[in-house]
């Protein structure tokens, strides 16, 4: 398969991805082949594997936004906990080349070693599921309960660590990974946490309501003021123009009788018209250029709030479905 066929096939395989993701990936590998040079092209194409494998790698990369648990080994990216459970854990204790099943049964101490890392993995598998991929669904059912407290504590730890500042403690290098799971962690909130949050919410309710009403009032007042000033300025502009025109007409009529006074009033009327036009244009600019972005921002704000609510509902729904 030459480069052209390879890239076309890859593009076709990725066609269901979002346009920007597909384009970015295609550009990356196109760049890659360019940088490798024509003389290495065949070799690199070989090394990249089949377009199908490459597409799978790219997809795994996209999925890990929800909870990345892949292992990068010499065979390339290996998705998820499936392969990891046996590979890392079985090796150190197996002196010989045991089969996985045999090494798994190797007695209490070995079991202990295996359990530690495993429960961590389960958490990840759970996290991945929430993202909607559903690929590890069957994995979770046996260990799902064990994983829940972990996920909860993960979320709590995250909330505490806040802005992921560089000064935090030992767990920090994994912070980046955890961030993706934060949302999924919410799903596993323990009962005590929920009660605590509820109590907190009840106590905070008066404050929240007061602040909310205050904010709402401020917003309404601001909006009213904006509308009021818009109307005043618009009318002001129109009135100025009209007055200027009338004044101009009157002064033209008096041009022969009182030339000096007429010229003065003509000048004034031109000023009036000019001012009126300026006001009208200014308000036109404000209405067309300044308001739409403001409205858009306000709409975005409202949308994020509603979306967040939706998200919570989704999670709750999912939880109901599982139990």
């Amino acid at each position, binding site marked *: 398969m030459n480069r052209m066929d390879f890239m076309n096939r890859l593009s076709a395989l990725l066609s269901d991805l979002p346009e920007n993701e597909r384009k970015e*990936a295609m550009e990356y590998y196109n760049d890659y082949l360019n940088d490798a040079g024509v003389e290495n092209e065949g070799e690199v194409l070989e090394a990249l594997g089949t377009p199908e494998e490459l597409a799978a790698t790219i997809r795994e990369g996209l999925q890990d936004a929800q909870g*990345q648990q892949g292992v990068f080994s010499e065979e390339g*990216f290996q998705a998820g906990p499936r392969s990891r459970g046996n590979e890392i854990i079985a090796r150190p204790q197996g002196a010989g080349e045991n089969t996985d099943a045999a090494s798994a049964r190797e007695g209490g101490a070995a079991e202990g070693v295996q359990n530690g890392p495993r429960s961590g993995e389960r958490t990840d598998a759970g996290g991945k599921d929430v993202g909607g991929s559903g690929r590890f669904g069957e994995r979770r059912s046996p260990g799902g309960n064990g994983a829940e407290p972990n996920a909860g504590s993960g979320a709590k730890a995250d909330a505490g660590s806040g802005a992921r500042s*560089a000064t935090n403690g030992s767990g920090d290098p994994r912070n980046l990974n955890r961030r993706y799971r934060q949302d999924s962690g919410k799903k596993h909130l323990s009962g005590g946490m929920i009660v605590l949050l509820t109590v907190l919410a009840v106590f905070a309710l008066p404050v929240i309501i007061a602040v909310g009403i205050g904010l709402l009032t401020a917003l309404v007042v601001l909006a009213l003021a904006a509308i009021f000033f818009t109307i005043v300025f618009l009318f002001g502009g129109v009135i100025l123009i009209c007055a200027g025109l009338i004044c101009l007409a009157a002064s033209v009529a008096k041009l022969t009788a009182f030339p000096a006074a007429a010229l003065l009033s003509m000048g004034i009327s031109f000023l009036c018209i000019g001012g009126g036009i300026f006001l009208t244009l200014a308000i036109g600019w404000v209405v067309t250029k300044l308001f739409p972005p403001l409205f858009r921002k306000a709409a975005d704000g409202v949308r994020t709030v509603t979306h967040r609510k939706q998200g919570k509902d989704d999670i709750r729904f999912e939880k109901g479905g599982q139990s």
Partner: protein
Amino acid sequence: MIFNTGAALLDAIVLAVVSREPEGTYGYKITQEVRQVIELSESTLYPVLRRLMRDDCLEVYDVECGGRNRRYYKITPRGSAQLKLYEAEWIRYSGKITGMFEGGAGR
């Protein structure tokens, strides 16, 4: 290599490679340099770079090069901070394991 490279370690290596170039570097070169220390398939790095970019550890810019655009990756302040953490953690971790090996041999 018998030891697998976890995602965090690979992140750390990539960040280290990119941070060596103040002006940034590009995908092919990063891959080749990472391949000097760990075995890694040619296709693996794209998801890693993409993830690091999304985490604001890397930033990208395009440079005109021989009639086409080449995408350069450059480390961000956040990426540098992350790399420092990884380095500290690695020293701690590898030191412990080395200590374990040496302690075991001495006994």
